[in-house]
Each structure stands twice: as structure tokens, then as C-alpha cells.
């Protein structure tokens, strides 16, 4: 159970406070409701590049990191296709420094040319390090545009290519800031050894004077129903053949989301899961195989990915995956399997309460979903799932005409 208090400032900023006196630390987490899905085509990678620029100084504070480190704090941030999330961890006695820093960069950035130039380079190196200079690093750069034709999920958070980042202009940066970075578009969570009354006072003091801004109205093109099987074959200097299969699945807020999560668990959670036991251990077709979901706020993906054992043909490997998918679509999972994945979900929820930062991030995310208290009732949704629902979800999902497949082959198999 993660307790919290909640209030909203006059400018629309939503604030949640989680009091935890077992720690001397505090966390300030701020979630902006903007991700790569809010980018324009041709200017992709921008939400993420922008996240880097948020550390390049704000209107009244020339450097962000230094004053925070000086009071014993640390910070970081991440960008996904849906959200951008910033967080600070510091000794609770120094929490006001976090308010000072975060409120100033919500008010306005410094927009320094030097910072833009450096961060363009840094992000390009990040692009190379994580996506281009790694075996299989570019899988998602290829799989997304295969699975999505229309919705902006068709590009990765890093962007479609290096050139779009290299070409980012200061005017783009400013426009992006004014559109997305304001109190109406943010959720602030403070957790740790703090008192709600003090936090309320600090929130009013530091964030209260920031103008509301204009609410961003999200109008994203819906992805049309996929009616034909899609596939793409890539050859690269990699040692093993890889198979990546993606199916559409409901959005995160859909009441069936938990059904799909458990479906992926039956296939792939732990070493007792079906894909691992049958395809890796029994039939030895794969040396590595996983199923997982993207948990996206719009229609997401159910992904199966595996590396083939040497000497196994792609045809046989793919056929074996389809056989598993057809089985789970045509027969209910066993009572033991269902109990197992529910027990595991319960464990994972309880273990997540061990970390103050995780609790703060989760509160912010569930508030974005509609209600932070959803974090505390989430497990009930999992426990309520029945075997028939899983079978039904599988039957509607695992259809060849709705599948996008990436064959990632070693150059020698070209």
C-alpha cells in the first residue's frame, strides 16, 4: 500500500505527496505528459533531445547539476514514446533545493546555443552507442515502422535518423518547450521523509507563480486495423539469426490490459514459462526467447523475440512459435499456470514498494492514467483475470494477418 495526499495548485499543477519516515531521503519526481508520440514527422527524436537540454541551465539558474550535487542530491530522467520523467533523490532536509531547480526549469529554460550544440553531439553519440554500434541495436528502428504505418509509435524515442537530431534548431526547441512544459501538462510527486503541509507550502512558493500555459490537445492519428501479414528481412554482421514478431494489443488504460500482461507472463515470465521450457529447453530451437508487451498509452505491441540455435531453420523456428500461440489461443491456461502468474504479479507489486523512487514514479504514472490510487488497486485487476479471458485475448491477437515479422539474419545467410 502506497499512501499519498493529493492537491492541485491554482495554475493546474497536480501534486502528490507520499510520506515515508523510514528513510532520511526524499524524492521529487516530475512527469511531463509528452513523449516521442507527440513529435512531428521529420523532427523525430525531439522529446528525448529536449530532455537533455533540460539540464543545460534554466532562466535563473545557469547550471542545473552542480547546486544539486552540492546538497548531496542526484538526478536523472528518461523519455519514452509516451512520457518524459525527471527525478531527483536527495537528503530530505534539502528538499527545497529540488523545488528551486525544478520550478525554474518549468518556468523557462536558458536556451543556450552552446548547450544545444553539445547535446546534439551527445545524443548522436547515444544514438551510435545504443542503436548503431551494437549487434541487433537497430531492431526497434526497423520493427516500429513495420508494425505501425500511421501512428507516431512508428518511430523510436531516439528518432528516425541522426540527421533529424543534427538539424534541430533553437526555434524548434523553444516551440517544443512552450507547447509541452507547463503546469497543466505535469504531475509532481514528492516522497520520503517529508510532511504534506511543508510540501504544500513549498509547492505554492516555487511552482505557484508559474503561468498555467495552454493545455496541449493531443490529436494523434489512429493506427488502422492491420489486415495483412507484414514482414521484413534484414542482413547484418551478427552471429545469430533473430526472429521478432509483433502483434497489436490494447492500450494501457484498456480494461483488458492486465489480461494481456498475464498472457505474456504465461508465455515468458520465469524459467517455467512455456516459451522457455518448450522452445529453448525441450525442442532447443532457440538459445534465447522472450515475450513481452510495450505497455503503451495508445494501442501497443505484444512482442515475441528470439535468437535461433545454430543450425535451426527460420521456418522451423517460426512454425514452433506459431504452434505455441495457437495452443494458448485454443485451450485455456491451466489452473496452476494462472495461479503462478498471479502470485508472481503480487510479488512484483510488493517488491516495488522497497524503493522510494519506484513508489514516486509509479504514483506519477498512475495519476497520469487517471488516478494515483490505481497503484494500490492494480493487483485486484490481475487477480480477477480468468483463464477464458486469456484464451480469448490470445485468439483475437495471434492472427497471421495482424502480425509484423522482422527476420534479422546473419550476413552469411544472405
Amino acid at each position: 500500500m502506497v499512501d499519498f495526499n493529493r492537491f492541485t495548485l491554482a495554475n493546474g499543477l497536480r501534486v502528490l505527496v507520499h510520506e515515508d519516515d523510514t528513510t532520511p531521503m526524499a524524492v521529487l519526481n516530475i512527469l511531463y505528459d509528452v513523449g516521442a508520440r507527440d513529435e512531428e514527422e521529420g523532427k523525430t527524436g525531439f522529446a528525448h533531445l529536449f530532455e537533455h537540454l533540460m539540464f543545460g541551465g534554466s532562466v535563473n539558474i545557469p547550471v542545473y547539476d552542480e547546486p544539486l550535487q552540492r546538497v548531496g542530491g542526484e538526478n536523472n530522467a528518461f523519455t519514452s514514446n509516451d512520457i518524459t520523467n525527471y527525478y531527483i533523490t536527495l537528503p530530505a532536509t534539502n528538499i527545497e533545493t529540488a523545488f528551486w531547480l525544478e520550478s525554474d526549469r518549468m518556468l523557462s529554460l536558458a536556451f543556450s546555443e552552446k548547450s544545444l550544440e553539445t547535446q546534439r553531439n551527445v545524443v548522436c553519440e547515444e544514438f551510435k552507442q545504443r542503436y548503431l554500434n551494437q549487434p541487433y541495436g537497430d531492431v526497434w528502428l526497423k520493427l516500429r515502422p513495420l508494425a505501425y504505418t500511421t501512428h507516431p509509435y512508428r518511430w523510436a524515442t531516439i528518432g528516425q535518423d541522426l540527421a533529424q537530431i543534427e538539424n534541430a534548431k533553437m526555434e524548434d526547441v523553444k516551440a517544443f518547450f512552450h507547447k509541452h512544459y507547463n503546469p497543466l501538462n505535469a504531475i509532481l510527486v514528492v516522497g520520503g521523509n517529508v510532511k504534506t503541509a511543508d510540501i504544500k507550502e513549498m509547492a505554492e512558493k516555487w511552482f505557484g507563480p508559474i503561468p498555467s500555459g495552454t493545455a496541449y490537445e493531443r490529436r494523434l492519428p489512429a493506427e488502422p486495423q492491420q489486415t495483412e501479414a507484414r514482414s521484413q528481412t534484414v542482413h547484418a554482421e551478427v552471429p545469430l539469426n533473430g526472429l521478432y514478431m509483433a502483434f497489436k494489443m490494447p492500450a494501457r488504460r484498456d480494461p483488458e490490459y492486465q489480461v494481456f500482461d498475464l498472457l505474456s507472463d504465461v508465455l515468458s515470465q520465469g524459467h517455467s514459462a512455456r516459451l522457455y521450457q518448450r522452445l529453448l529447453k525441450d525442442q532447443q530451437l532457440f538459445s534465447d526467447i522472450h515475450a513481452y508487451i510495450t505497455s503503451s498509452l495508445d494501442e501497443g505491441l505484444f512482442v515475441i523475440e528470439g535468437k535461433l540455435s545454430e543450425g535451426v531453420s527460420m521456418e522451423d523456428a517460426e512454425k514452433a512459435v506459431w504452434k505455441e500461440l495457437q495452443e494458448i489461443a485454443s485451450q485455456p491456461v491451466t489452473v496452476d499456470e494462472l495461479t503462478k502468474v498471479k502470485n508472481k504479479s503480487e510479488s512484483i507489486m510488493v517488491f516495488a514498494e522497497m524503493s522510494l523512487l519506484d513508489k514516486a514514479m509509479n504514483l506519477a504514472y498512475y495519476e497520469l492514467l487517471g488516478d494515483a490510487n490505481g497503484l494500490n488497486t492494480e493487483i485486484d485487476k490481475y487477480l480477477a483475470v480468468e483463464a477464458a479471458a486469456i484464451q480469448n485475448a490470445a485468439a483475437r491477437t495471434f492472427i497471421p494477418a495482424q502480425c509484423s515479422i522482422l527476420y534479422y539474419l546473419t550476413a552469411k545467410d544472405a
Partner: protein
Amino acid sequence: MLNRTLIPESRQVNEINFIAPAQQQLDNGIKVFTLNAGKQELVRIEFVLENVNWDPSKPLQSNAVNHLINNGTNTLTAAQIADQVDYYGAFLQTEYGADQSTIKVYTLTKHLKSVLPILWSILNDSIFPQQELDIFKLNQQQSLKVSLQKNDFLARKNFAAVLFGNTTYGSGISLEDYQAIQREDLLGYFRAGYQPANCTVFVAGKFEQPEFDLLNAVFGQEWSNNEKAVVNHFEFPDHQKGDLFIERPEAIQSAIRMGTLTVNRTHPDFAGFQVLNCLLGGYFGSRLMANIREDKGYTYGIGSAVVSMKHSGYFFIATEVGADVCGKAMEEIEKEIGLLQNELIPAGELDLVRNYMLGSMLGSLENAFSHADKFKNIYFSGLDYSYYDDYIKTVKNISSLELQELAKRYLNTDNFIKVIVGKK
């Protein structure tokens, strides 16, 4: 009107409370250190076994035993073990380190009674089935083939090989090493390495007397294994110096790794050296990050670290930089080290690092698990909690002059091994 240019008041961390574990003993003498803390009804139990009987001709022996120990016993198949562990929502992990092998389980406390017998079977009756070994050998080789395509992996592997030679710290594993693993070697190691004389248990989470009694009832009896074993001991008088370049013509980034053998946690200079390391490359605001990422934009990240092992310690700097700026990055790294040796660190910068490190230490004591981890660090170095008192004193008080001396003593780049993988 709010003045946003004024930094709010702040305080240096002056009190850091470490929670020491309670020490108990099972009926067969195994020491159990328990950190009973936290609100959640869950527990982590770790069985830590010293690595023994190092045989350089079988570099994967102890590693493979650790990895395969949950793959079949006299009474349970690999699938049954996985099934039962997952059924109770538990997580069973094996962790192989250069000095110790660990078997750990995370479980809700209410399922402890069901989970412990599975662990007992694993630690006492493992049989390492040939079929499981064959799958392991093939899949590990596949995974190694992927890693061998990664520049940072190659840099790490070659750096360790030069530094630590033919010991468990340095051994550069090859595909052939996997092919050579024999089931008999695994059984032999299991009989020697997995026994009470060699085992210490660490518990963290919700764990009271009834849970201890449960643990004792299962693990306090006589274990199956009792063969003679010698705990590994290594000495590293000196190492090769110089440059190692592994060319990968298609690389768009080069991995750099450089460093040297140095003191470990038991040495009085260690805490001061950690301050020096933090300043150079140990946090986001470090000199290496400020120069090579934030000023030059050559990399997504660069860092340095001091690593303490049982019989050695080492220092290293690691990064991946644009292939076209590799030479420049190397120059800048050496320049930053030179500055530490030749100029006193300004008081403002040193104060910042002090505060950062104290805050970071405070933040690293988040829950029962992290308190237990802090204890393991000192326990396996043969130290007590005065180590942390001294560490905090050093962080608060070390002078710029002392840090300059440490830089001269430990960061002599002529003694460094410098590995570059990619393009120069």
C-alpha cells in the same frame, strides 16, 4: 517577489545510521546474519559460498556449477524447480563473482516454508544432468558470440586479461572453454564448494524467530557435501603495462578502457582514493563528464571506478567515443589526470564532492537489502563498521593536498594498461 536566483538553505549530511545485522548460527554451525527491517512482508535470503580449488585449465568450472545448480536434483527436474519457484511468486537467482558464488531467493515471507525445501534440494542434491549441461554449453556460446561483437565487452575482457592473467579475476573466457566443460568437473566442484564450512547466510527483510526456526530446520542439518576444499587465493605482484589496440574497421565508436591495479577496501588510502575517483569520473558532474561529454560532446558517457576485490583492487576509466575523436578523447583523459597531479583541487569543487558523496551514501541505505549489502562489503573484507566511520571522516576532511598526493601515487598513467577497441 520570489528571488529565484538565490539558492535555498541547505545542510550537509551529518548523521548516517547503519543498521548492523543480528548474528545467529544454525545447528550445523553455519553463520546467519539477519537484517530484520522494513514494512513489507518479504525476505531475501542469500547463501554465499567462497570459491575454491581454482584450476586454470578449467576456468568455467565454478561458474558453470553456479549457473546450472538449479537445473536438476535427485528429486526435482529443472522444469519442476522452475515451476515450483515461480508458483510461489519467488525469484531464484544465481550470481557468480570472482570471489564468491551466491544462490539467492526473494520471496514473500508467507511462502518461505514452501520455498526453502526447493533451495535445500538445489544446494545438496544437484546432479547437473548431461542434457542441461549440453544446452547450457550451446546457449552460452551463442550468447558469447553476440558479446564478442560488442566493443565495450572486448575492451573489458582484454583489460581484465592483462591485469589479472590466468586467474578467476582475469580469465578471458573463450568458446573453447565452454566446449571443454565436463559433467564430472561440475560434480567434483559441487562436492567441494557447496558445504556448510564454506557457506555464510545473509537474510534481509521480514524475518523473525519463527522464520529462523524454519531455516534452521531445513538447513541446520548435515549437508550432503563435505569434500576437502581450499579457498582460492591470488597474488598480483605486477602486471603488464602499455597499449593494446584491437581494430574493428567498421566501428563508428571506439571503446576505451584504461587503468591499473590499486589498493582495495582494506588499505587506509582506499576512502581517499574513492574521493579522488568521484571527482575525476565517479558522478555526473565529474571532470571527465564535464570535459568529454558536456563540453566536447565526444561521448554519451564516461566514468571511472575503484573496484575492491578480496585479493586485489583496481582502478579504471571506461567510455565509448565517436571513432573520429578517439585520439582526442585519449588526450583529454590524460590531461584531466595530469591536472589532478599538478594542481590543487579548488575548495568549492571539493566541498561539492564531499556533499555529493555523503548524500549518495545516505541514499544508498534505502532498505533492508541495501543495509545487508553494506554489511557484506565489510564482512568479506574482514572489516567492521568502523570502516564506514573512517570513510565518512575521510570524505568530510580530506584535503586537496592529500588528494594530489593520492593522484601522484595511484594514477601514474605510465603504469596504465590502455585498451582501445574500434578505430584510433
